[in-house]
């Protein structure tokens, strides 16, 4: 029989947003070199996801593997040193020896996505190669409102491994993006995760988003409050809770101030801020 997939658990924890658990469970014995490299990449990406950028920057020295260097670039970028991060990123990408490293390309995709330069992002990710890259493609296409392309990417993922957590997740993202009856399927996918793995804020948020789109804001609120119990500062939980409370006609200003304080650059905060400017501008335009 094929050898057991030792990183299975670790990957799942990471994809489902249990970053600290992923880090804590990263000590997997009996890994070969490739698996160990993948493990390290996941661990450092978890740290990045937790916001420990400096840790990542200082831990990864120049002798580390390309994939880890790429993660370091991401940490660098997210820690605010955008320009130098992009410069070195481009340098790396143009290097034929390492330019095709899937993790590097993935990170490139993520960084350019942050830059909202989807064309550039896709340039590096479109050829795929790993499920991560395809999943990122799905996400980029969803952001570009091109669910037709996203679906093609998902098909590829399903051919590779239909039951993979990432495939299922990407499926759920796409289902939510296209809406309609697919929302129910997305909900069931998140429900499956909830049954099979430890409940994470990400899964709860996923379920809650589905509930909101199905019009059951009450249930969404329950789920989000549960997520808030797990992590009181999770930006998505707060954002979704604000949206949910708005729809329920409940006061949401406290959560908004909380989100403004902790994540001033969150899409929702930006949206709120831009809405006010927008309003003033519109007033002028109409008047």
């Amino acid at each position, binding site marked *: 029989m094929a050898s057991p997939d030792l990183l299975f658990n670790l990957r799942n924890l990471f994809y489902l947003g249990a970053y600290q658990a992923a880090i804590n469970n990263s000590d997997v014995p009996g890994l070969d070199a490739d698996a160990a490299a993948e493990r390290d990449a996941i661990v450092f990406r978890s740290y990045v996801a937790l916001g420990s950028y400096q840790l990542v920057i200082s831990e990864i020295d120049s002798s580390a593997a390309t994939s880890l260097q790429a993660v370091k670039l991401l940490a660098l970028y997210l820690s605010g040193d955008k320009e130098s991060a992009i410069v070195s990123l481009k340098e790396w990408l143009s290097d034929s020896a390492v330019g095709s490293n899937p993790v590097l390309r993935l990170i490139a995709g993520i960084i350019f996505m942050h830059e909202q330069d989807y064309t550039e992002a896709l340039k590096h990710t479109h050829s795929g190669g790993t499920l991560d890259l395809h999943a990122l493609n799905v996400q980029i296409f969803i952001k570009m409102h091109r669910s037709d392309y996203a679906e093609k990417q998902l098909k590829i993922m399903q051919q590779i491994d239909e039951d993979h957590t990432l495939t299922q997740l990407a499926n759920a993202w796409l289902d939510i993006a296209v809406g*309609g009856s697919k929302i129910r399927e997305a909900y069931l996918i998140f429900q499956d995760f909830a049954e099979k793995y430890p409940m994470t804020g990400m899964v709860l948020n996923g379920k809650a988003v589905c509930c909101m789109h199905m019009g059951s804001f009450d249930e969404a609120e329950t789920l989000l409050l549960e997520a808030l119990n797990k992590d009181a500062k999770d930006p998505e939980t707060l954002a979704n809770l604000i949206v949910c409370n708005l729809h329920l006609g409940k006061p949401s200003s406290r959560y908004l101030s909380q989100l403004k304080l902790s994540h001033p650059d969150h899409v929702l905060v930006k949206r709120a801020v831009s809405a006010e400017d927008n309003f003033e501008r519109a007033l002028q335009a109409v008047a």
Partner: protein
Amino acid sequence: MLTKFETKSNRVKGLSFHPRRPWILASLHSGVIQMWDYRMGTLLDRFDEHDGPVRGVHFHATQPLFVSGGDDYKIKVWNYKTHRCLFTLHGHLDYIRTVQFHHEYPWIVSASDDQTIRIWNWQSRTCVAVLTGHNHYVMCASFHPKEDLVVSASLDQTVRVWDIGALRKKTVSPADDILRLTQMNTDLFGGVDAVVKYVLEGHDRGVNWASFHPTLPLIVSGADDRQVKLWRMNDTKAWEVDTLRGHMNNVSCVMFHAKQDIIVSNSEDKSIRIWDATKRTGIQTFRREHDRFWILSAHPEMNLLAAGHDSGMIVFKLERERPAFSVSGDTVFYVKDRFLRFFEFTTQKEVQLAPIRRPGSVSLNQSPKTLSYSPTENAVLICSDVDGGSYELYIVPKDSAGRADYLQDAKKGAGGSAVFVARNRFAVLEKSSNQVLVKNLKNEIVKKSPLPIATDAIYYAGTGNLLCKAEDRVTIFDLQQRLILGELQAPSVKYVVWSSDMESVALLSKHAVVIANKKLVHRCTLHETIRVKSGAWDENGVFIYTTLNHIKYCLPNGDSGIIKTLDVPIYITRVIGNNIFCLDRDGKNKLVTVDASEYIFKLALLRKRYDHVMSMIKNSQLCGQAVISYLQQKGFPEVALHFVKDEKTRFNLALESGNIQIAVASAKEIDDKDHWYRLGIEALRQGNVGIVEYAYQRTKNFERLAFLYLITGYMDKVGFMCKIAGQNNNLMGQFHNALYLGDALKRVEILENAGQLPLAYITATTHGLTEIADRLAAELGENIPSLPEGKARSLLIPPAPLTASGDWPLLRVMHGIFEGGLDATGKAELEEDDEAAGADWGDEDLDMVDASEAMANGGDGFDAEEGEANEEDGEEGGWDLEDLELPPEAETPKNAGNARSAVFVAPPPGMPVSLIWTQKSSLAGEHAAAGNFDTAMRLLSRQLGIKNFAPLKPLFVDLHMGSHSYLRALATAPIIPIAVEKGWSESASPNVRGPPALVFTFPQMEDRLKAAYKATTDGKFPEALRQFLSILHTIPLIVVDSRREVDEVKELIEIVREYVLGLRMELKRKELRDDVNRQQELAAYFTNCKLQRVHMRLVLGSAMGLCYKQKNFATAEHFARMLLENNPNEAQARRARQVQQQCSGKKDSSELNYDYRNPFVVCGATYVPIYRGQKDVSCPYCGSRFVPSIEGQLCTICELAVVGADASGLLCSPTQSR
């Protein structure tokens, strides 16, 4: 063939099942008749009175009788209860081949080698008919199950059917004795009571067996020509229908199956063959290596067969009778009569879901074997042995329940077993390659996974996991990780039952139940002598299972017991409290109610839920020797203690559980030496010195007592003991005590008193008591003993005791719930003792707890700090991220082309959902949600003439903020905002965008209206005004679905407008202090607004009062009248009537600008009446009216629109634009 029981013996020639009990008679060639319990597998009895082989044997249907016939020409009737042969029927002149009771009359039919068949009356013990006609050995004869017929087979190559109608008539009306006598005569001459009806010729050799079909006019026969023939008969004739060829040697016995359309035959060729009775083809053959078959027998009620052969017999079943079922939540899905059905436990409703396919080939055991159900997809997998193992997948539409006509094409596949492993995935076992195929609901292979062990069946084991069963063990295998999660040695598991929380699993094999946890860690194994059939977990974690004849329980620790005895096997599907739901062999759902208290009690004990235990003890009659011995056995003497009244048992239990208080109490009651002694030992063991002392005192065991005092340091008490010993003339004791005390003087004195002068002298001298020594020396005179020379002397003083305090330190004894509750009578003085004893350590104990608590707190604190640190980190991260908001100019140039981009062209971005919203819609709310505030404003301006948008700002922002939810996708990549759409339904097609779900809805407005009404009633006018205004401000952004609702919205605007106007005037009135006339006018105008009655009454009351006070009696009277018309309450009405009386006929004292006879509206800005016919302008949104001079100003009512502006009107539903 499913063999249920097998015996080894001499050749079996005759067999008979008991109609009710699990017994079978086997008559042997050796002359012995055996009675077996085939369920337990034991020989119950043997009857050995025949001389030579016994070929025929038969149980009576109702009486405790059986009949046997043998080669000794004798027919014997036995009572198996008394184990006696009741009588013997003589008459046959040769070997007897078969004997059979009639199902109704007291008759026995026998076939014999003397070429006759005889019918006997076993009550009168006479032969009532002799059937002659065969001209060779008659090999078998049997009654028809319903009609007055007998069929016989003979070596003369014929089968004969005999009509015994005349015999029956004679028996039914036996009154005519004379007639009977004449008939008896005719009997002697060949008989007319039984006449040959048909002679069936066709076999080429002697016929060994013939038997009737249980319901149809058919006969089947088997002969030495190796053929089985099927015959049909009607009223007038009988004819051969078909011949079944296949046996290689003489067919010894053949019969129709009672329940299935098959024929079973056996032969000397060592085989049993099963034939399809309709198609007349062989279905199956079972062979034995060395044994020729001689006889077959079918159970009259159950689906069991037995066959006798050269070296014993077998009891077997042709097909499984277990219905395929699967429990899911509140329902059990199962297959019955070719239909998939489900049954709801709570409602006990049974629904037929869908028909399932009939297997193509006719052979045995093709019915569904297992069933697996996926609740979310409503899909069912049915596995059977068809084609060497195959499955069918049915996806049942939710709405088809109950529609039996619905038949779909099932998706099929081959595979040993198939189960769902996830919502939309199932695994199929491919035995040949030992791998599982994971398939989706389209029956497409998604994945293949090799299995770690040689698997012959798979079962569900949680999402994505499989429980694989091999010959000798089971493993749980994770299909995704390809990891073995658990393994357990458990031979030939047949069924797997998971608890509802998936934490525990029960593995059922033929004779064992193994309980394990979800990682297959073994918990306990139960062995059963009788086959285990089924099981289910109850909600407390007790496993309830059935054997063939019992319902039993198994506690988590492996204790088991019988709950109920069963008559027929059942298959448990679900256990809810005392109710056990099950399926029987016919696929019927049944509910068995059992008394669960015993195992619940034991479970509570096991879990140390003593409160529960106690309430059970109090409320039910559980007490009994069995319970006490169980408790004692299981190490709960302290619990058992509370059941027992008998003091001796109580004492023993108390000692066993170390409960010294109760032991003391019991010892007091019993008060004998032995018990005190044992109490003393236990108390000493525990170090309870007080009790030890007490026990020794009670037994007057002074030596022990004294020694106890010595070692515990009570020297004064030792001295006291010394005195007592002296009083009792116990010299030895006295001396001992003196020795303990180290009192040399005393010792000398004792010795002296005892007359042991030399000893006294030596003692005195040794201890340097020279005075006494001298005196003693004098008394002794010459007999002074010599003292050893040159030895150093030392004082004989006992060492000081280490602990000179009372009891030894004891650990605090837990005061169980039992002490308080059950033992309320409880022997109180001793409990105090106990507490005192516990004190020393008890405190320290507590300290330790505190300390550990402190530790825990400390730990918490630490955690919290760490958490905070993390959170700070997070915040930092958050702030860092802010830098992202750098202006987009920082973006890298888009056309930084390299090789890769040349090939790949990224697709242009699609259209955001919010853009789609604005394109389709001319509703302001939807534009605002999409963030297009300018178009929203233009729409509002055009539709409603709104110019002042300031009050709408928070509403716009909320709409926009609530328009998207946020989905975190890949870690650290930007999150995806998803547009929230309205009107979702299960059937909505994807990719078709709906309108936005707005955060403001019409129902919300209705709620706000109620709140505003309430504020008005309570007189909180500013608050009420604020509420009404908020409604008025929100309405322009509302979207409703139907025309009707549009009208309701418009109505709402009017209602709110009236209130806003009225409240504004009321507030204005309150501001005016001096201008009483204006005050009255405003109050009067308020009454002109359209209000709720309750408010109208209040307004009228206030206006009436105001006018009355100002002596404007006519107006006041008018208000009073209006008030009375508005259903006032008692007080209001009284006041109104008073005002009416006071005012009637009087005139107003001052002129008011208020003419109630002339209809008017009030200007929303100046609050003056605009009488009918006068010119006015109105607000394009709220419709308030104003005097013409106000035109062009902002409406003071709604604060939004410009009075008199051009507007197309409210648009708040997509239905309006159609």
